[in-house]
Structure formats: C-alpha cells, structure tokens
C-alpha cells in the first residue's frame, strides 16, 4: 500500500481499519467521488429509465383485472402477441444454427474476404432499423433481386409473415455470432487433440467435446436474439404487410392503439411484452453465469 500524504487519504486510511459501516456496504478506498457519482448515477437512472417505466405499470394499475384481461385476451391482441413471440422463436432458432456455422467458419477457416465478412456481421447493429426495413422489403419484393428469383418458385416474402421472419433473422444474427465467437477462440487446442488421441472421430470430438463447451454461449445468443426480435419494430413493419390477425406484430399494435388514443390498450400490451423481456433478461443472466462457470472465466 502506498504511503498516503494528503489529509483526505489519511482520513480514509484511518477509517479503513475500524469497523465503521459505510453506506451501501462499500469497501474502503482512497479514490474519491463515490458518493457524488453514485448519487448522480441513481438520479439520472431514475429520471430517464425507472420513473418512465414505472409509469407504465401505474397506468396499468388503473385498469381493473377484468379490463386488463379483456384487452389481452381479445383476438387481435392474442394474434399479435402470438405472431411476435412465435416468429421470434423461429428466427432465433434459425440464427442459432446459422450463427454457429458462421462463427465456426470465421474462427477456424481461412477464406478470401474473411476479415471483411467478420466486420459485416455487425451491420444489423449499426444500420438503422427503418433503413433495414425498406431495404429488405425492396430486396424481397416481387421485382426485387431476391424476390424475383423466389417468385419463380411461387414463394412470396414481402408483405407476408415470411417477410417478418426474414427481418427478424437479419436483426438477430449478430447476437449469436458475437456471443459464440469469443468462446470458440478461447477453446484449448489440447482438449481436441486429446480427444483425437484417445480415438474419437472428428464428429465425436465436435459433438461431445466442442459443442458442450459452446452450448451456454449458443443459448445466450439465442435468448438475446429472441429478446431483440420480440420488441423489434422498424425493420419489420415495412416488410410485414401489417394485416390485422395475420401479419400484425405486437409492437405495431401498440402504436396503432396509441394513434387511436386507446392508451389503456397500448399500455396493457406493453406491460405483457415488458414482463416477457424481463423474464428473458433473467434467463440470459443465468445462462451467462453458467457459461462463465463452464469456461472457468469467473
């Protein structure tokens, strides 16, 4: 420990040895500014995030349980929620498989343009959702580059639920790749070599040695992609067609209810979605802890 010369430092050092309890159970430190920075952080967090989100629950509390239930169980709401959650699940599952393959190729193989492809994975993070939305729509429209090819096979993508799926795959892919990639990079070569030496085939090594090590990361990426997809709005609404009960996602229904000044309806749907995303967040935290324990990074 350094010799403390300034008075403030000495004072803190003096207290460090004593048993005085500090606010928030803080451990002693000579670094200043704890009180004010934590105070400002909590204030700003409350003003921008917590109070506005609490308002959502307060507004819902003004509804009787019957009213709340009537909104949530209406056919249109149920269909919208089912569509959002169902397609998000399918998109996340597709990304789980595709993301694993893409990560493997980026980490293990050398091919022309690998570095550029690696950078490109981040496009859905960086490209504004509205831009992605109109781009995907025109790409998959019947006269678009891909849409015209698919039309030959009689497949319509733009303005159908299939279009929503395409947009959700686009938006979710980087979550899986960017979660799995570092774990693949961290894998020890010795473990695979040991498996091979002990007589395992390559397929056995991949499924019994590598897959279990990467599984927590894969599932985390899946959950993150799913959470993002459920709330996604901008990239979906252009390509969806937005037919009530058919291709109307839950976030869009919130916007429609707001435009009709049915605040209670909009809020009730929002609360259901928010609770769902809290639960997913909780699952992600659990998965990440599991993942860290597994890879011994804790």
């Amino acid at each position, binding site marked *: 420990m350094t010799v403390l010369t300034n008075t403030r430092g000495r004072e803190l050092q003096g207290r460090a040895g004593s048993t005085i309890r500090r606010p928030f159970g803080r451990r002693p430190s000579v670094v200043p500014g704890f009180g004010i920075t934590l105070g400002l952080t909590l204030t700003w967090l409350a003003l921008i995030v917590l109070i506005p989100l609490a*308002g959502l629950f307060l507004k819902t509390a003004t509804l009787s349980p019957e009213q709340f239930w009537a909104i949530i169980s209406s056919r249109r709401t149920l269909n919208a929620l089912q569509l959002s959650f169902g397609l998000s699940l399918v998109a996340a599952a597709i990304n789980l498989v595709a993301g694993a393959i893409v990560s493997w190729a980026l980490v293990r193989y050398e091919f022309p343009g690998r570095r550029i492809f690696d950078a490109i994975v981040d496009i859905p993070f960086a490209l504004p959702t509205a831009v992605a939305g109109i781009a995907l729509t025109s790409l998959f429209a019947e006269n678009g580059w891909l849409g015209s090819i698919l039309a030959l096979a009689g497949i319509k993508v733009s303005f159908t639920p299939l279009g929503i799926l395409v947009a959700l795959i686009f938006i979710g892919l980087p979550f899986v790749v960017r979660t799995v990639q570092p774990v693949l990079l961290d894998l020890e070569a010795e473990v695979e070599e040991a498996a091979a030496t002990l007589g395992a085939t390559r397929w056995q090594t991949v499924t019994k040695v590598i897959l279990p090590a990467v599984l927590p990361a894969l599932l985390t990426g899946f959950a993150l992609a799913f959470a993002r997809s459920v709330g996604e709005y901008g990239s979906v609404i252009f390509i969806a067609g937005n037919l009530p009960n058919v291709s109307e996602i839950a976030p869009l229904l919130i916007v429609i209810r707001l435009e009709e000044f049915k605040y209670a309806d909009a809020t009730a749907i929002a609360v259901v979605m928010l609770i769902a995303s809290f639960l997913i967040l909780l699952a992600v935290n659990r998965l990440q802890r599991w993942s860290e324990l597994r890879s011994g990074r804790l």
Partner: protein
Amino acid sequence: MSVALGTLQPRKQREAPPDAHDVRQERRLVRWLITTFAVLFLVLFLVLPLATVFAQAFARGFDAYVKALVEPDALAAIRLTLLVAAIAVALNLVFGMIAAWAIAKFEFAGKTILVTLIDLPFSVSPVISGLVFVLLFGAQGFFGADLQSHDIQIIFALPGLVLATLLVTFPFVARELIPLMQEQGTQDEEAAISLGASGLQTFFRVTLPNVKWALLYGVLLCNARAMGEFGAVAVVSGHVRGETTTMPLYVEILYNEYKSTAAFAVASLLALLALVTLIAKALLEQRAATE
C-alpha cells in the same frame, strides 16, 4: 447483456487455422460446405440489403439523388437528427463516465442490480421506450394537464424526441467503459491521489487516457443508434413534416408516399453512417490491440 453490441476490448488474436495434417481439421468437403454456407448466408442476409440501399438510391441517377437530399424537408430532417443526437449523446457521455466511475472504481452492495438496471433499455422494445413518455407527458398523460396549462409541449416536439432517444441509448457509453475500467483496477488512481492530485485531475489525466478508445467507441455506437432510432421517436414525434421528423421518420414518410428513390437517398446517408461506424470500430479494435 454485455454482448449486446460487443465491447471494445483488444480482440484475442486468432491462432493460425489448423493445417491439413492437424487432428483438429475437418475433411475438405466439410470445410468447403461450412464456408460456402457461411458466406452465402452473410451475403444474402447482410450484404444484399446494404447493396440494395445504394442501388435504389441511385436508381434514377445522381441528379435525382442529390435533388432528394437538398429538399427543404430533407434538410430539416437532417438538422433535427443532428440536434437530437448531439443532445442525447452529450448527456449520455457525461452520465456514462459518472456511472462507470461509481461502478468500476468502488465495491458496494447492489452493484449487480445497478448494472442490470442500466442495461435494461437494451431489452425494452423501442416502441415501449416511446410509449412511456407519451403516458407521462402526452395530453392524457400524468403531467399532461399541468404541461398544457403552462403551455409546455414535450410530446410531438423536440423534448420528447430527445427523451425517447436518451432512454434508448442510455446504456451505450457506460456499457463500454465499465468492463474496461474494472479490469484496470484502482492502482493508478490511488497513486495519483497519494501524490496529491484532486479527484477531477485524477479522472481527466489518469483514468480518461486509459479508456479513451473504449470511450470513443461507446460514443460512436451511441451516436449511430441516436441518429438511426426509429420506433421510439416514431411514437413521440407526431410526424410533422419539416418539424418533428428525424431522418429515419422522413424515410418512412417518403417510402409510404411511394417516393422510393428519395426514401433510399435519405436512407443511404444513414447507411453510410453505419458503414463509417463499422470501419471506425475495426480501426479502434486494432488500436486497442496494439496498445
């Protein structure tokens, strides 16, 4: 949720891929299949949409492209976007540094919960991020009547756009700084303090230089999201042309009016911003790795 955007940390250098005689190598056909699938998937889902933006923007030639961008409404949208992003990024920058200091440099109870709460906006639908401010400040909202009697307009005006953007971009800067500052510990700061530096001097001369690349990256991401945000601002904007339409909202208006070329022209500016952000990320990653 630390992976939501990937923190800027010196990337672990990739080892040389296993060669043909390595036991860790798959058969040639398998390698070929996996690589082809990966490249095809990335091209179909990521490269083609991006290429479409520019192809459509220039579909009617360069003159039509420029004409769409110098429209008064387009210029107003660009100005508004820059203004909203400037305010939101500046505020989140200050908050991010303060929050990172409190969280990374001290140990206290409830820290995990605090970090989770800061991450919360990542997992909230952008539409909900806008909705909450309508519920607070809209005509029928909690403070709606009070605001009206004082003639203060928040929703369908600049303050609403800024608030929605602030909420959506809330975690970006803090999220970049916290892991790095935690990793660096407090020895440098303790040394500076013991040599007589004040708290602010320590922060600006010792801590900040240590995290400058991560901070810059956080600001870039925050800015990209602030300028590109759609769902949250769509709810609070009211879509008044030339007044409360940011660039993404203006893209939507043009697209719905079947002015496809103009919509893609404005969209191409946002796509350029995304490309610049990605290139800057790659450069900053290299920088962080060499230092």
